[in-house]
């Protein structure tokens, strides 16, 4: 037979399961007056109440939130749970905020969710901010530090950029409509390359126009790239989600949009240096090639000269042989000339000898001579005819 009794833990776990599975008690916002507030171990344990009841709350990581004062009306967001170990009901709070602000925040969350579902925040709808804008349209107040900061930052980075201001109220009644009109104006204003919607920091109430649907719709429909630069770094407004780019502050918005002129000038100068290096390298290469060609040419000329020298030396050797041959021949010729001189007929006749001719033929023998022949005697200096009277053999 089973035990008819159940343990305390079993009862508490049963109760806890009931609370945890109750959707109506999960992720709810409860407003009430703070009646006690104690911090222990980094968590805040407090009660909120209204005229008819009280709720025990625990806020984990309480240091992240401003501590409320006793009597403050707050809005607490969290889930109801049952603390089984202590047997107590507990409202586990994720965040707290002053009640008035809380209502605005709720409105903000609701609009944010609504616009998100309508695709206002879709990444594919966003466009890139041009890298080199010439003219910036600014929607902000014409008085105050914001427009001055934007002008100063822009001109410090790049004094070639034009800035055109569409002046609007940035808080209070009618501000949302003016801001929307400003965005619509620049949307169809051909001169500007980008639009900055800006305002300085402020309370959530001050930011109300930038959390409005009318501004979100104008920002969504804007034909120009749009930068939101609203409040401080930690402030998020609806327009931040719709904008193509969110800048944490107005100055940062100008920094993001105004391209740095000096960086471009440096890049251009660097490009020229790169060009100079490229062309210098090419010239070096060409010079190297020319020097190589000249060396090759010199080598070829050297080789040719060497060949010619060898040939010339050979020729000189041959010439000396010819000289020797000529010497020998000259000697021989001299000898022949001497011989010829020796046998020169004129020389012989000069010695007293004379040549005997019969007609034109020389008479070489007495056998060819007969008595009564008419013979011609040729002397070195003349001739005479004579008749043969007697022949002796």
């Amino acid at each position, binding site marked *: 037979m089973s035990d008819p009794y159940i343990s305390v833990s079993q009862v508490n776990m049963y109760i806890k399961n009931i609370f945890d599975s109750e959707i109506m008690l999960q992720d709810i916002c409860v407003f009430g007056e703070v009646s006690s507030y104690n911090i222990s171990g980094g968590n805040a344990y407090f009660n909120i109440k209204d005229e008819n009841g009280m709720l025990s709350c625990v806020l984990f990581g309480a240091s992240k939130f401003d501590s409320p004062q006793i009597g403050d009306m707050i809005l607490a967001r969290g889930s109801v749970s049952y603390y089984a170990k202590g047997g107590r009901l507990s409202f586990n709070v994720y965040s707290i905020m002053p009640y008035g602000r809380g209502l605005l925040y709720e409105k903000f969350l609701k609009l944010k969710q609504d616009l998100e579902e309508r695709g206002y925040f879709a990444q594919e709808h966003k466009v890139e901010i041009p*890298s*080199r804008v010439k003219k910036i349209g600014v929607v902000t107040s*014409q008085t105050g530090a914001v427009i001055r900061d934007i*002008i100063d930052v*822009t*001109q410090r980075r*790049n*004094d*070639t*950029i*034009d*800035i*055109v*201001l*569409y*002046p609007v109220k940035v808080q209070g009644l009618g501000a949302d409509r003016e801001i929307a009109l400003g965005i619509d*104006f620049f949307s169809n204003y051909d001169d500007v390359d980008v639009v900055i919607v800006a305002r300085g920091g402020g309370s959530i109430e001050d930011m109300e126009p930038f959390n409005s649907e009318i501004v979100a719709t104008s920002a969504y429909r804007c034909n120009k790239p749009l930068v939101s630069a609203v409040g401080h770094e930690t402030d998020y407004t609806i327009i931040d989600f719709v904008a193509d780019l969110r800048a944490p502050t107005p100055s940062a918005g100008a920094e993001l949009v105004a391209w740095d*002129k000096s960086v*471009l*000038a440096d*890049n*251009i*100068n660097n*490009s*020229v240096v*790169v*060009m*100079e290096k*490229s*062309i210098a390298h*090419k*010239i070096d290469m*060409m010079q190297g090639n020319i020097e190589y060609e000249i060396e090759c040419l010199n080598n070829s000329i050297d080789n040719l000269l060497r060949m010619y020298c060898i040939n010339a030396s050979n020729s000189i050797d041959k010439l000396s042989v010819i000289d020797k041959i000529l010497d020998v021949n000259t000697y021989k010729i001299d000898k022949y000339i001497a011989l010829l001189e020796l046998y020169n007929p004129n020389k012989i006749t000069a010695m007293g000898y004379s040549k005997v001719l019969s007609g034109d033929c020389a008479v070489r023998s007495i056998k060819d001579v007969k008595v009564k022949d008419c013979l011609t005697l040729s002397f070195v200096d003349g001739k005479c005819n004579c008749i043969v009277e007697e022949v002796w053999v």
Partner: protein
Amino acid sequence: MSIDDNIKKINEINKKLENPDLSIDEGIKLYENGVSLAKNVLEELNSIKGKVTIIKKELETYKEEVFE
């Protein structure tokens, strides 16, 4: 030609100059062209002075006036 067009051309020239097969004559022509473009950009950067204006509505028309 806009600054962006000039910069695009300068970058193209730098790429072409990297080509080892490019003749020295072509290279010198490109280099001279590139330097001239760079000079134009720098001159333009130094000569343009941006204006700050405010939109004023007169009747149904909008016009820009100098913002003091």
